[in-house]
């Protein structure tokens, strides 16, 4: 009898259907609406039961409770208020999904942008120290994904010293440090992983701490060129763009 009950419980726990109104829209199951009446049109959705998605079920995230949400929601909301609805529409961002312990192919990550479904998944339990930066870092990936012609990786790579080359992917290297650590042309160790991560790092640092970072950038001619490169691209998307 005990086994029958166990099988019964397992069946009900793991056989839930991806059948809800929000799944229809962004193909992530078991989400609930948290806040939709935002001036810039962002719709905040939360996962209370967690989810597994991706073609190979490689993206996993755990559910959050109200206390997790209370702690971080305002931070997320305040940072996303920097972006107006027109800009968000251009970069294909409308839905922000909040969950915790987000991972892709077994590697923890702070956020996953999905331009196709205009969705950004954010890990509420991501390291507090880098949390705000991470939000803008992921937003830059959405910008880059939407306008790859404005942020050409080969052009960007040419700004570096000739003897430098990026890794073939951001997880193919041990260069994962996120602390501010200026090396010729780079702001963090993670910047050295790939061109897109380098761009996202500079963008997110400028977005969260413009004054200090801008001063540091001005002292480095490569970083100065990189900043200009980013601003040129961003101005193409929104001529009023400011960090």
């Amino acid at each position, binding site marked *: 009898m005990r086994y029958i009950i166990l099988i019964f419980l397992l069946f009900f726990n793991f056989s839930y*259907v991806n*059948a809800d*109104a929000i799944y229809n829209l962004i193909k992530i199951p078991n989400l609930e*609406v948290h806040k939709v009446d935002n001036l810039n049109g962002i719709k905040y959705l939360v996962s209370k039961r967690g989810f597994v998605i991706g073609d190979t079920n490689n993206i996993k995230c755990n559910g959050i409770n109200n206390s997790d949400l209370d702690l971080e929601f305002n931070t997320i909301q305040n940072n996303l208020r920097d972006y107006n609805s027109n800009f968000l529409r251009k970069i294909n961002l409308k839905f922000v999904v909040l969950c915790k312990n987000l991972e892709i192919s077994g590697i923890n990550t702070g956020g996953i942008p999905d331009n196709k*479904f205009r969705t950004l998944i954010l890990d509420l339990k991501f390291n507090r120290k880098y949390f705000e930066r991470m939000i803008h870092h992921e937003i830059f990936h959405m910008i880059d994904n939407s306008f790859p012609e404005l942020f050409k990786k080969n052009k960007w790579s040419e700004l570096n010293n000739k003897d430098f080359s990026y890794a073939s992917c951001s997880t193919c290297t041990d260069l994962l440090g996120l602390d501010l650590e200026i090396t010729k042309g780079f702001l963090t160790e993670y910047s050295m992983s790939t061109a897109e991560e380098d761009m996202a790092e500079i963008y997110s640092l400028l977005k969260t701490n413009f004054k200090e970072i801008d001063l540091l950038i001005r002292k480095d001619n490569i970083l100065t060129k990189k900043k200009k490169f980013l601003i040129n691209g961003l101005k193409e998307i929104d001529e009023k763009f400011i960090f």
Partner: protein
Amino acid sequence: MIKEIKPSLSEKILFIFLILLIILTLGSFYILNNKCLFVKKIDLNKIDFKDKQNIAIMEVECGNVLIELDPKIAPKAVNRFKKLINRGSYNGSTFYRVIENTLIQAGDIEYGNISNLNYSKVGTGKSGLGTIKSELSGNFLFNAGSVAFARKDQFNTEDSEFFITLIDIPIYQGEYTPIGRVIAGMDSLKKIKVGNKSTYVLKPDYIKNLKLLVN
């Protein structure tokens, strides 16, 4: 001489109990098998239509459903919907996709008709008229009874499939092309057959007839 045996009180009670049990069983069986029993029928003569040109009448198993189309919000979509109605394309179209107490979807003309339902392809069929551009509205509220064209993951892929919301789904605002609203017959829609473990329904309910009030 045979002596008459009178039933005792307890035997009488047991007999009455058995009779009641049989009545209850048969009654329950009848109620369970008749999902439309408590669905209120619509009397078209009692409804004062403001815009008869834009009323569609959809007949489903439990009765009629009246849809008021809104060409002001989505003129091309309503035009397409009317065109398909006039062709009779929706007659027999199955509600192959049902999210319990949330929404129902029909309108796959190619693979979703009850007469030749193709379970492996339903949801991918085409009308033959091509896709139309999304006509999104920030003003149309997706309350219960909203009728809208379904689309693929991308915009501008609307063709013939449509869905009706059974509850308010505010997040759909500005996401789907609205066609109109159900003005009567929601009870009939709530009785549409739901899939057991899937959004795709086996032996689904279907639209018996879909026509315009005025052609």
